[in-house]
């Protein structure tokens, strides 16, 4: 029951924040649309980064095709709302406008999640049965296959892009799903199943020898991660109202990897931090757009040299702070000897 109260509180806060930010709650009180858009894209990036961290950071299986799953989610949900939106709305006409929109969005996102999960299963089963870097190679190829396929499907606009998507997602929905993603990943990681995932990352042979069904665990983790990427894609499509295959190149996958590497592989709060940091830098450096990728490469190199485990490492923000404090009070030589 406490959980329900917290959830209701969160929904209320997001709802009010949404009203305040967009100016629909109090006339004249709002932030610039540009800034609101940046905040919303940051929320989508948080969902992407946290979900990718489940497979890359906690399970230790390197996936570099997250944009592919995002594309599946974006295109499938957009196709659904554009084609069947009105038919679904008709029986819902008794609901207020935002209620109709909400139902439509949720159905679209459910489709996005299911299709991305199915794709994740198809990709994951053969490549995760093996140990090593096979998943990285397969997902890299998969992402490109998805992009090129979409490029050649005329029903969703092909290379022209898919326009005319209704604007169903807003600050409220984006951050609701970002919070849900964080909650789900947190609970998965802090459960017996999560422990087996981390054990696989640490030593797959030992994990198998301890009776862990490693292939099954890896596939489940990958499918969950893919489904979340699909949801992020659905939100992305219904927020920008226009999607283009070029939004889902492997560069997009790498952006998400940069976020989690900066923040710390295996840290949920690290991923959030990485996502926010990444979008702040991208937007802040808009004037120097042509040098942006150079700066990111430099940033990545510096982090790899100075702090290879990422800003927060394996730890979460809270334990990061408490650990710091404790280690100052300890006698020299008693802390970590890695």
């Amino acid at each position: 029951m406490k959980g329900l109260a917290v959830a209701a509180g969160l929904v209320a806060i997001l709802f009010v924040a949404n009203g305040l930010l967009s100016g629909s709650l109090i006339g004249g009180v709002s932030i610039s649309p540009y800034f609101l858009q940046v905040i919303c894209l940051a929320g989508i990036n948080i969902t992407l980064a946290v979900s990718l961290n489940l497979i890359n950071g906690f399970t230790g299986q390197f996936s570099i095709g997250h944009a592919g799953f995002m594309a599946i989610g974006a295109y499938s949900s957009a196709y659904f709302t554009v084609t069947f939106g009105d038919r679904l709305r008709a029986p819902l006409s008794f609901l207020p406008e935002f209620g109709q929109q909400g139902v439509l969005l949720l159905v679209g996102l459910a489709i996005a999640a299911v299709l991305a999960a199915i794709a994740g299963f198809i990709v994951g089963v053969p490549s995760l049965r093996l140990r090593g870097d096979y998943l990285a190679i397969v997902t890299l190829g998969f992402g490109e296959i998805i992009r090129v396929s979409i490029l050649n499907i005329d029903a969703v606009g092909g290379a022209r892009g898919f326009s005319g998507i209704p604007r169903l997602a807003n600050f409220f929905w984006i951050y609701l799903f970002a919070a849900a993603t964080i909650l789900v990943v947190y609970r998965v990681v802090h459960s017996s199943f999560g422990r087996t995932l981390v054990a696989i990352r640490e030593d797959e042979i030992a994990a198998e020898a301890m009776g862990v069904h490693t292939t099954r665990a890896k596939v489940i983790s990958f499918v969950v991660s893919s489904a979340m990427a699909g949801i992020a894609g659905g939100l992305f499509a219904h927020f920008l109202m226009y999607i283009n295959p070029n939004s889902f190149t492997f560069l997009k996958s790498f952006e998400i990897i940069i976020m989690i590497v900066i923040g710390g592989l295996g840290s949920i709060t690290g991923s959030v931090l990485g996502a926010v940091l990444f979008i702040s830098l991208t937007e802040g450096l808009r004037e120097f757009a042509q040098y942006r990728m150079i700066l990111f490469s430099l940033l990545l190199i510096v982090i790899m040299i100075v702090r290879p485990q990422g800003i927060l490492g394996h730890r979460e923000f809270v334990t990061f702070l408490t650990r710091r404090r404790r280690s100052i009070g300890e006698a020299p030589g008693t802390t970590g000897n890695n």
Partner: protein
Amino acid sequence: MPILSLSRVTMRFGGLVAVNELDLAIEKSQLYGLIGPNGAGKTTVFNVITGVYTPTSGGITFESASIEGERCGRITRRGIARTFQNIRLFSEMSVLDNVKVAFDCRQATTLTTAVLRTPKHRAEEARVDAESRELLKIFKLDHLADERAKNLPYGSQRRLEIARAMATAPRLLLLDEPAAGMNPHESNELMDLIRWVRDHFGMAVLLVEHNMKVVMGICEKVHVLDYGSTIAIGPPAEIQKNPKVIEAYLGGA
């Protein structure tokens, strides 16, 4: 009726015959020692029993079920646990979590119960936590429960590996050189520990060890391998006098 029996097991790697037509039988709650010079095929025997390798030929029976060729994890769930010659702990995880992972193979929680945090899930987590701490206490590691496994001293890491293997509730425990790198005091403690664990939990132990003091001190039966073939089986006192064993270790006169 032996708990584990190998009949004519052969393991070939290309032209190399690592294990040749090996017959081996371990009785219930027996302390069985497997020794031999370097390269005799002891670790290969371990890997064949635990499913890391599928034997080239021959049969392995555990509790009257044929297990050769099964996956490693499945064999563990059947009741065979092992430790590794080169320690393989989950080094970034806490000592407590290392043990908990091994409990998970007997746990009835799923992903959905974990996400929803159902009462059953919480109860299960609490039970695993309590049992893991209990196990750590037996192995005198309870005061280190929250420490990361990689920060433990060597001897404690060895003990933790055994504790982790015990968490899978095995009827047969395979120890691959548990005394390697231990000082005489630590290996004495280890001998007491292995004996105590066997008496307490009643499982059989298959021990590979180079430290003869440990092998001769605790094993009830010793099996000597050389170049993948059995050269002697018997109680420790007999093995020590066996001319073939002396020759294999020291070379012919």
